[in-house]
């Protein structure tokens, strides 16, 4: 016999509205305005209907809304699939499901959709606040599910309390599954185009304005934890893309060979762990210069002839890698003449005055080292200003910068310096990356932000190889030694959280970022590699799927049994008088006297007068006491009852 689902009670409607609201509202930040408006109108309409009397919407209206919504999404995203369009579809369906709530079945579908929508929020943020917000929403959705299956007149408090209790009991399972469920490195299938949109970070080209734009972001680019002393600020150069090809305006990465750059380390090595934020590029940003590369499986880090360390695939998620670097090194002493020639090339017809200045140094100074010094002296002596807001530069950008405006950010200085060197016959190239970083006193991590983005230069000198020269240090030594916040004049558009001038803000920021870092390291950074480490620590070296599955199965089973033992623990009779009476009943039943549960104590006692006269007086006494104890106002004394029970049991 097929039975239809229970009809929906009017009291369920506000719960369902709340679920729809909480699960779709955070998406309004990312989705087109019209979709938010449609969903909001539907919600308002249903809320109004709740007061007036709910009715399922007409079929034509639902069909119209579905068609219009899908068409809108198709127009906006150019697809119905993909990450963002898919989320938009879910939001649309969530809103429209509210229009056809007839049975409990419909409500259950809506609740399930709500759970699913929770997941999609993590596409955009996995921070602690998002996690907390979603935990709260899970509580509400679960309370809604409980309300759907309980008494419709149950108070919201009861449903929420039950939901909280269930979620608390679910927590141990979550922790266990999180740690032991065999982790797979995604993706399982090709991700849609928009899967990792909107990541900030360095790029592989540089034109005036790029880095100063990036430097206005307080976002964290990487964190480093040193096993040992932290290198001083002037050694904290995090090496990114090497740009050696210039077209008059933009620097690009040129050709590089897939071979090591000929590194010799002359100083002690530093061991450290880098936690790189996802930047959707392949480079890894180690401290100059790496002596050993990380080797987690799947990463396949390589160093190319320009000294850039790259992974096989772009970093789509936060990545933890271990490096060894040594700040004392010699690189490319035996650099091939072909590479040196490439690093002397300049485009025709650009920046004639700059080229003339460079050439004049070549004639005046026979030694390349002297020419480098001449350029640095030039920057130091002329009135150059270090600023995040350089004026706009025209066609002959470097000429204007060097001879007219003289206001620039690191990319201007690095670019101008390299052009001057090349004109002076010294092979030179631009290196981008980050410089500096700040130690968070709370957890000892060195934090490097986008505002630490930097560009510097490398020149090749006979017998020394590629030598780092940072022209910015010549203009503003403070930038290198204490960071960007103290190097910039007042009123520069720095992100508030980077501004070191606010002490209280700084300490709060440090606390918060240390918590976030722990969250990232411990929770979000838990990956297949860390899982293997955990298993190794538990005594399973090289745990495979089978071991993990067995461990998971056994521990889940144990946990379930423990929870069952707790949930099914025998309940104590909450009424002591009744507990005593039940012991008496058990005694009587053992002696072959049937005691149906509906019989009151006094009725039983009267029945026993005939059926078992030898027991009747004792039962009658106890029955009288139990009845008095249960129905007498105030809390009765239990002692006489216990004595009467003892007398009965002795019979």
């Amino acid at each position, binding site marked *: 016999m097929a039975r239809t*689902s229970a009809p929906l009670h009017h009291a369920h409607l506000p719960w369902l509205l709340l679920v729809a609201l909480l699960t779709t509202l955070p998406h309004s930040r990312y989705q087109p305005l019209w979709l938010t408006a449609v969903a909001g109108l539907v919600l308002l309409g249903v809320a109004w209907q709740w007061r007036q009397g709910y009715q399922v919407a007409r079929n034509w209206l639902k069909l119209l809304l579905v068609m219009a919504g899908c068409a809108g999404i198709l127009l906006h995203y150019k697809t119905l699939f993909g990450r963002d369009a898919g989320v938009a579809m879910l939001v649309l369906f969530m809103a429209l499901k509210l229009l056809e709530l007839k049975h409990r079945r419909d409500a259950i579908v809506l609740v399930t959709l709500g759970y699913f929508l929770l997941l999609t929020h*993590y596409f955009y943020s996995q921070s602690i606040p998002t*996690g907390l917000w979603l935990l709260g929403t899970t509580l509400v959705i679960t309370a809604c599910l409980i309300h759907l299956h309980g008494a419709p007149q149950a108070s919201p408090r009861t449903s929420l309390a039950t939901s909280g209790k269930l979620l608390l009991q679910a927590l141990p*399972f979550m922790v266990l599954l999180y740690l032991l469920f065999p982790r797979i490195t995604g993706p399982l299938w090709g991700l849609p185009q928009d899967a990792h949109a909107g990541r900030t970070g360095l790029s592989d080209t540089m034109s005036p304005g790029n880095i100063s734009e990036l430097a206005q972001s307080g976002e964290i680019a990487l964190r480093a934890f040193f096993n040992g002393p932290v290198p001083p600020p002037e050694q904290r150069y995090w090496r990114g893309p090497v740009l050696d090809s210039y077209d008059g305006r933009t620097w690009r990465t040129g050709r590089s060979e897939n071979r090591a750059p000929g590194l010799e380390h002359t100083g002690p090595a530093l061991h450290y762990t880098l936690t790189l934020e996802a930047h959707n590029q392949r480079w890894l940003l180690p401290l100059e210069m790496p002596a050993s590369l990380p080797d987690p499986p799947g990463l396949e880090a390589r160093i190319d002839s320009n000294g850039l360390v790259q992974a096989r695939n772009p970093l789509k998620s936060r990545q933890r890698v271990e490096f060894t670097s040594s700040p004392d090194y010699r690189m490319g002493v035996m650099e091939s003449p072909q590479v040196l020639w490439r690093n002397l090339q300049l485009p025709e017809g650009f920046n004639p005055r700059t080229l003339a200045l460079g050439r004049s140094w070549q004639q005046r100074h026979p030694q390349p080292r002297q020419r480098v010094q001449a350029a640095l002296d030039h920057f130091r002596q002329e009135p150059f200003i270090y600023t995040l807001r350089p004026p706009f530069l025209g066609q002959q950008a470097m000429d204007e910068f060097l001879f007219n405006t003289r206001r620039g950010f690191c990319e201007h200085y690095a670019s101008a310096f390299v052009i001057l060197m090349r004109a002076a016959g010294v092979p030179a190239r631009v290196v981008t990356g980050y410089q500096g970083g700040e130690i968070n006193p709370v957890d000892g991590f060195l934090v490097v932000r986008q505002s630490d983005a930097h560009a510097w230069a490398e020149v090749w000198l006979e017998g020394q190889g590629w030598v780092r020269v940072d022209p910015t240090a010549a203009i503003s030594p403070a930038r290198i030694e204490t960071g960007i916040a103290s190097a910039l004049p007042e009123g520069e558009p720095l992100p508030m959280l980077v501004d070191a001038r606010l002490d209280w803000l700084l300490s709060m920021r440090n606390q918060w970022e240390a918590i976030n870092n722990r969250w990232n390291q411990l929770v979000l950074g838990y990956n297949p590699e860390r899982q293997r480490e955990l298993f190794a620590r538990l005594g399973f070296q090289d745990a495979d799927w089978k071991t993990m599955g067995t461990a998971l199965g056994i521990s889940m089973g144990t946990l379930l049994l423990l*929870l069952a033992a707790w949930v099914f623990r025998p309940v104590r009779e909450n009424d002591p008088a009744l507990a005593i009476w039940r012991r008496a009943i058990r005694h009587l039943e053992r002696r072959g006297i049937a005691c149906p549960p509906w019989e009151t104590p006094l009725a039983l006692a009267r029945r026993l007068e005939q059926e078992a006269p030898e027991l009747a007086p004792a039962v009658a006494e106890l029955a009288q006491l139990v009845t008095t104890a249960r129905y007498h106002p105030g809390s009765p004394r239990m002692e006489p009852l216990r004595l009467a029970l003892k007398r009965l049991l002795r019979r």
Partner: protein
Amino acid sequence: MIHLRLPGRWLARLTQPRRSESGPIRLNRRRIYILPTRAGFLYLATLLIMLLGAINYDLALGHALVFLLTGLGLAGMLHTQRNLLGLELAASGQEPVTAGELAHFRISVRNPAPRPRISLEWSDARRTLPPLLQHIPPGYSTTLQLPIPAVQRGWLELPPLRLASRYPLGLFEAWAHPWPEARCLVYPRPHFTPLPPGLATGSTGDRHGHEGQEDFAGLRERQPADSPRHIAWKAAARDMGNRPLQVKTFSGGAREELWLDWDAAHGDAEQRLSQLTAWVMDAEAAGLDYGLRLPGCQFPPARGPAHRHRCLEALALYAA
């Protein structure tokens, strides 16, 4: 939710008890079965898709959410089972009914635990009855009236019951098939035809011991079928209710004697039983003295609810 037809039947047969039990039944864990509902399977499928999404997009918190919801489902399973665990129930029959009516069996349920039992769904094991919903507060006992159609005359046994619950999450359904022993007498379905001619005695209370309605003749112990109007309340009040209730008996009054005879009825055995049933009811309603004569037994003329019941019981249990 719509239940899948075949597995439902098959499961019911598999989990049904073989025989009814006398005495109160306490639902322990061995008696409670549990399986996911359709909503539970939908939930599971959603979790799987969410897990794939979390893996594919490498969402650490997505993993955490899926695992939290997995734990939630498991905890919900235990709580669904607990919603039935420890309930105590017993059943009792009720006043006889005639075939074609509904016999309302009384099921008394006690919740000994300090927590409420929510959304208990009562039905019979074959699920032919519309389900009855019940909530029991902590420590309460309630009585439920379960209407079972009385189809045939004779004893109607309480069928195996089905007590189910999906609370709290609806992802699992726990059920038990308690089968408390209880039965109810079903009189034959009456087929009303005119009463056969009676034999008027016309005598007024000359026969000793025959009860009438006019003259007070004394007291005797009350029997369940006696009308409450005849209880000697004053006598009961005098002895403080310590002795059984007495009823007043009367004698006298004009009477007509009527024999309802198997041979006077027509048709096959069942039809005759139906006619006789209707005659007993009519004769009692008309205030006549009537006797019943069946092959193998007879009841001398009398009247009153007790006599009526004796006659109808004989008809109900008559073995053709």
